[in-house]
């Protein structure tokens, strides 16, 4: 089972964090700090897996973003690597050639997509079509419900 997933930039800024095990806020911060440091220190051609505490870390860099997952001892590293890739594909398809900024400005979408793909630390739906269908249906729901807003409200002055 996946214990958590972190997305962070080359500068070490955390862009997304998803925890599948209950941990205190303090522990989460410590783990993220430790791991970001460890991974950023590694050289590009190195292996994508490493042992860390009693977990296996699987990570991969896409452009300026690192995707990093922690899985348990019996878990399969390669399939985890492809979980990362499929998630990147989903983001890419949804945002249309995704970049770090998309994830910063639409972090809530990134979470929604992740929830459709992985739940409780396990792959829920691996078909790209089905995941995107679910998200698009949701988007449709909100567009119908959305009433036009005044300009003042739109720029956040209310």
């Amino acid at each position, binding site marked *: 089972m996946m214990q958590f997933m972190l997305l962070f930039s080359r500068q070490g800024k955390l862009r997304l964090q998803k925890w599948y095990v209950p941990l205190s806020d303090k522990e989460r911060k410590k783990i993220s700090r430790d791991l970001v440091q460890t991974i950023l220190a590694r050289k590009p051609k190195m292996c994508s897996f490493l042992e860390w505490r009693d977990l296996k870390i699987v990570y991969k860099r896409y452009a300026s973003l690192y995707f990093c997952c922690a899985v348990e001892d019996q878990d399969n590293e390669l399939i985890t690597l492809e979980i990362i890739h499929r998630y990147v594909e989903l983001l890419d398809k949804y945002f249309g050639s995704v970049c770090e*900024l998309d994830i910063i400005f639409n972090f809530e979408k990134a979470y929604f997509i992740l929830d459709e793909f992985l*739940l409780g630390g396990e792959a829920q739906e691996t078909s790209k079509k089905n995941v995107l269908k679910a998200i698009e249906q949701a*988007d449709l729901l909100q567009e119908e419900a959305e009433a036009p807003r005044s300009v003042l409200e*739109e720029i956040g002055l209310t």
Partner: protein
Amino acid sequence: MPAVSKGDGMRGLAVFISDIRNCKSKEAEVKRINKELANIRSKFKGDKALDGYSKKKYVCKLLFIFLLGHDIDFGHMEAVNLLSSNKYTEKQIGYLFISVLVNSNSELIRLINNAIKNDLASRNATFMNLALHCIANVGSREMAEAFASDIPRILVAGDTMDSVKQSAALCLLRLNRTSPDLVPMGEWTARVVHLLNDQHLGVVTAATSLITTLAQKSPDDFKTSVSLAVARLSRIVTSASIDLQDYTYYFVAAPWLSVKLLRLLQCYPPPEDASLRSRLSECLETILNKAQEPPKSKKVQHSNAKNAVLFEAIALIIHHDSEPNLLVRACNQLGQFLQHRETNLRYLALESMCTLASSEFSHEAVKTHIETVISALKTERDVSVRQRAVDLLYAMCDRSNSKQIVAEMLSYLETADYSIREEIVLKVAILAEKYAVDYTWYVDTILNLIRIAGDYVSEEVWYRVIQIVINRDDVQGYAAKTVFEALQAPACHENLVKVGGYILGEFGNLIAGDPRSSPLVQFNLLHSKFHLCSVPTRALLLSAYIKFINLFPEVKGTIQDVLRSDSQLRNADVELQQRAVEYLRLSCIASTDILATVLEEMPPFPERESSILAKLKKKKGSSKLPDMDDSRKNVNGSAEHAEDAEVASKVPSHTFTDNLSVNSAPSSGASLLVDVFSDFSSAAPTESSDEHFPRFVCKNNGVIYENQLLQIGLKSEYRQNLGRMYVFYGNKTSTQFQSFSTSVSSNDVLCSHLNVQEKPVDPLIEAGAQVQQILNIECVSDFSDAPVLNIQFRYGGTLQNIAVKLPVMLNKFFQPTEMTSQDFFQRWKQLGAVISPQQEVQKIFIAKNQMDTDVTKAKLLGFGVALLDGVDPNPVNFVGAGIIHTKTTQVGCLLRLEPNTQAQMYRLTLRTSKESVSQRLCELLSEQF
């Protein structure tokens, strides 16, 4: 700004995020955030009611601030409000906020659960999924309590949408992991297994994870999943790659599902049914064959997905460990990967081969790759890969190649990364000991270790070499000679001085015949290192000196002079000073006979588990290590350690002999020479708990005990005078619990009234795992005390003791009895009149909780009696009846509970045919309101 802004762009949020990004410094960012927080706070507090959109926007901003790493202490209520919005996006943001900022704020949890309940009942798939995702993300006990029974129903209902089924399966999995005691097995279990046959591959993918977890916990209940999983797997591996449409990933058919199915099969031994077994073998062979086919795509995703399935198939082959042909094929395949240009594959091949090395069928095949592995150790550029190579060398080592492997590890040690040196030292030490045919090689190896990596040689390692030298008289002379020679080096590591001091002190006489190593030469050599050493080493050397006085009377004068010098007798360190004073005095006044007795050679150490092995296990988690020396393990491990610790603490630490550290009982005071046992376990004081006990009077399931390490859950069922209790022990840590054992104790009175028989429990609980134990209970006659469950285990080095009062109470053996009003009053009068007044027990007490009719009813039913409606003329009173079953007798009980809401009090009356029963039942029940 984002290239695309899909859906609802919240402009205000985007502006805020841009602002934050434009902040030039951390201070500016904090300032901007504080401004925003103040703004949001005032909006939330303001008189003007916020519309849904604004609420959503502000909640989303708070979430963003939290994700930046700042604390958020408000907004929860607004987020909860969003949950019940009928606009989807508002609901969605509300759920996201709750999922990320889990807060077991009890008031809110009720509101959140309410919203979830509504969404689950909405029959709208999108809403249901949101609710299920939230439960799966939070996974708290409160949610488990509220929804553990609904979700299985949703999961197996015929009309549930596929996507909801998927969410429900993984939601249930999460609850099962966090609160297994609250997720009851039921008739749904059989139906869950059949989800493996579902047409929708997404449903199968989600369900397989759930089934795997459930099967790990209760394999027998899920046995039927084996044939279904094999059938499913077989269909996948033989399908043409386009058959599975969108579940094909870079020309690999359903790789995630395949991996999950192979994992599920690893919960079971090889199938017994011959046709099933051969079908599975065919699948595995097909997977191995595919690895040899030319790739269908050059993309790395293709090869990764394909190899993910391959590695999982190999894991299953190793798990079955029954088909030599498959094992050898697996080994050859991994051998190819050892030289693959992909670092990832080399890493995984090394890792997977480690487990293959422990199978008798493939051990030899693994050994043929030794040269490749050694070259990996020398040439790999990534330390994590080199680490795997060390692990594999360690795993493939046996008598035939031990000299080569130890030599390679030693030479690697000279340049090894600092992060893995200590582990390599431990491994070398263990291999050298295990495969030593002649112990001179062993002594050489350890001294080499100290020479090359002295700083990384832990106490355990040099303690161990001393234990072995003392226990084997064939090596003592050689050891003395070797350390004497090693000490000649102008600069030698302090660990060498320690080993040298100890060994020459014991066995220096064996080489004293040679004039080049005469007693005086030996002494001068040791003493030349003295001033460069730390206090503990000096203390050890002083003990070696007094031993010299016994071994070599001719150097007595020289040594006494040293002891008498101011630098010793007036040393600032108390320990050194005391040793000098005492040793000097001993050497002056004791006769030769007494000296010889006090300073006799150390007796052999009792054989016990190598402390080095224990240390390595602790470092790595023992599951990864092949068990190296079972024969050495002491059977009654924990008990003996506890005794040791006790003995040690009883011996006063400054007795005379103790400071000499001769052959007396090991002491904690002067630990240097005697601490070779080293594996002392400090025992933590017993923690006893009965705080949750009262909660179980009216219910049978729940958590009875929890601390930072362990959670104990209970499920119990009772019929007549018999009961069965399932105890779940959950390891909350990321470290294994060892020597886990339990016992149930009852006091003298209780044990004649109640029998509790415990089934054996697994002595190991892996990190994060849970084990189950069954207790069978028989009520012989009525009782009032409760049995105590004593739990003992080792966590890290510490022995943990926990005592939990088991919630087995008399009322558990109730059978409810329905009766008419007429019968009830007839019995009531009989019991009141015929027998002595003590058989009626009455108690008037103040309500501790809110006086709620439904809650009271539920509690009385939970207590075990039947509630009789319309019996009491006053409708607010409760009347109940039941029979307590014991082996020897049955006791009829009638009770009446009269609430007085004005006074906030109750009157409870019990009439039974036995005084002690009335008394006990009244005690138990009156505490519940």
